[in-house]
């Protein structure tokens, strides 16, 4: 029955025109970034290299390759994708309540926990498809347009150079990690959705939570750095960047296949999984006892 429910949920998601807004928006943003970097890529790289350009000759043409463009796109876009995930996941239960179909669903011989799990799984499938779509445009598209070279990643005043042959697995891992982060956002939006009778509230609530915690994180003041930030999911959502920070030898040469801080990545992953489980438990518990009055 669960698989049947999941199939129904996916069918409903992909029959709604609003679902494709996110796919269209992502494609458009990526194409715009690619176009901008094609025209003004050198200026963009100078933003990172700054004074170093006066001392060294920066090979902008080589830095500006498909991999670099993809990392740039991910930096720009992954912070905003939660809004697109909230648009779908925040509508899962409250949208049905608003439409009046929730009472028909709950009056059928399926358990409410099954319903919640099916809706969560469907929103996760949507997240995965969204990321696959993003990978198609950002990675494949950028490689086709800009070619492949070693990847240069700028980190504050440091620079990591990753060999061409050592890059693809990192993108794969980063997308998997991003999927985990976005699934946590989806689970939170779904939780808000069980509390509400219309879609707007859960979507706005999800976006607000993400904005508030992002601001708290960016303030970088000790009071938050020591208390909220280590546990805030917005901190760990950006964990995917860790796959592009590599270990270096004493001579400053990057080590192939290495990650600078794997323990932090594992911790972030576990915290995100913890949030997903927590949000799902709250959703299931609340929804199980909820009187369907819509």
């Amino acid at each position, binding site marked *: *029955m669960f698989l*049947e*429910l999941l*199939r*129904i949920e996916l*069918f*409903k998601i992909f*029959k*709604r*025109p609003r679902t494709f807004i996110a796919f269209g928006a992502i494609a458009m943003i990526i194409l715009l970034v690619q176009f901008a970097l094609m025209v003004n890529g050198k200026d963009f790289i100078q933003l990172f290299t700054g004074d170093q350009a006066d001392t060294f000759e920066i090979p902008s043409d080589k830095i500006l390759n498909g991999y670099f463009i993809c990392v740039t796109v991910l930096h720009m876009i992954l912070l905003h994708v939660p809004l697109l995930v909230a648009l779908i996941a925040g509508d899962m239960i409250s949208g049905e309540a608003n*439409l*009046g*179909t929730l*009472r*028909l*669903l*709950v*009056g*059928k*011989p*399926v*358990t409410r926990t099954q319903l919640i799990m099916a809706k969560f799984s469907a929103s996760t499938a949507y997240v995965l498809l969204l990321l696959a779509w993003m990978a198609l445009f950002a990675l494949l598209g950028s490689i086709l347009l800009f070619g492949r070279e070693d990847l240069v990643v700028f980190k504050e005043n440091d620079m990591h150079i990753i060999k061409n042959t050592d890059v693809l697995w990192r993108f794969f891992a980063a997308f998997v990690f991003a999927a985990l982060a976005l699934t946590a956002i989806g689970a939170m939006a779904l939780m808000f959705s069980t509390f509400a009778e219309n879609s707007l509230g859960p979507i706005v609530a999800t976006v607000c939570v993400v904005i508030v915690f992002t601001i708290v994180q960016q303030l970088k003041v000790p009071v938050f750095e020591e208390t909220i930030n280590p546990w805030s999911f917005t901190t760990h959502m950006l964990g995917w960047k860790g796959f592009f920070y590599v270990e270096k030898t004493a001579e400053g040469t990057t080590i192939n296949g290495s990650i600078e801080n794997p323990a932090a990545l594992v911790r972030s992953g576990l915290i995100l999984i913890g949030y997903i489980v927590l949000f799902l438990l709250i959703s299931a518990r609340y929804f199980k*006892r909820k*009187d*369907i*009055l819509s």
Partner: protein
Amino acid sequence: MSAIIQVNHLTKDFKEIKAVDDLSFTVNEGQVYGFLGQNGAGKSTTIRMLLTLIEPTAGDIEIFGLQLRKHRKEILRQIGAIIEKPDLYKYLTAYENIRIFSRLSGVKVSDAKINEQLAMVGLADRTKSKVKTYSQGMKQRLGLACALIQDPRLIILDEPTNGLDPQGIADMRNMIIHLSKDLGKTLLVSSHLLSEIEMVADSMLIINKGRKVVEGKVSELLNPSQSVVELIAVDNAAALEFLQHSEWSSALKPVTNGTIKLEFDKVRIPELNKQLVERGIAVMSLRPLHSLEDYFLSQTKV
């Protein structure tokens, strides 16, 4: 005749409001059971408890001889329901809606069966149209098709004629009669349109403020010999003067808004008419009021 629904001391509190108060009733197999009450009387809350949408505060429900709490899935598999207006997925077609609801009921039905069901409710030519293009009547019929697709033993219709035009109301009434008489289904039909219930139901329950007012067979609850008769004369004052000082005085009901009403055996209507005319009181109308309507109002009067 076995009991299909057995409700015992059902109660539902919403904070300080008692929506359903110690309600008990029985629906037997093959019956069309009318569930009557004014808006806010507790009909929909009761129906939602029968469909497990709302958790009762107290009391228990048995359906098909099984405890609803313990055998929820098994019971719901055999129930088809429309709860208030049939809100369906507007962005899907009738065919897609009916397929979804059949699968949710754990039944895989063939395309032919879906088309047959849609034809039965008169939507054969609109199966591929999106529901957002449907009229209220068409949505109601599609809701009924969705409720019937898994061939349920028990059909629960909550205000099924709400928002329908006269033709739609007649179609729904005929459908209820067809389901009962031809297919032997048990139906629980809630309504505040008393005339509709009277035309289709065998038994009925009237509730008011969540409490049972009366339950029984429609034919027994309505005394066919005693009717409330409304009189409209050219000179109502003269008619009233005559009635107050005649053998009809005991039949007179309190005059409200200038309307004269009497309660007596309706076979005596010609006799009353004759007496009025003989006294020079021209009669414009002398007709028995809808008996159930009057009965209902007398029972639920605040």
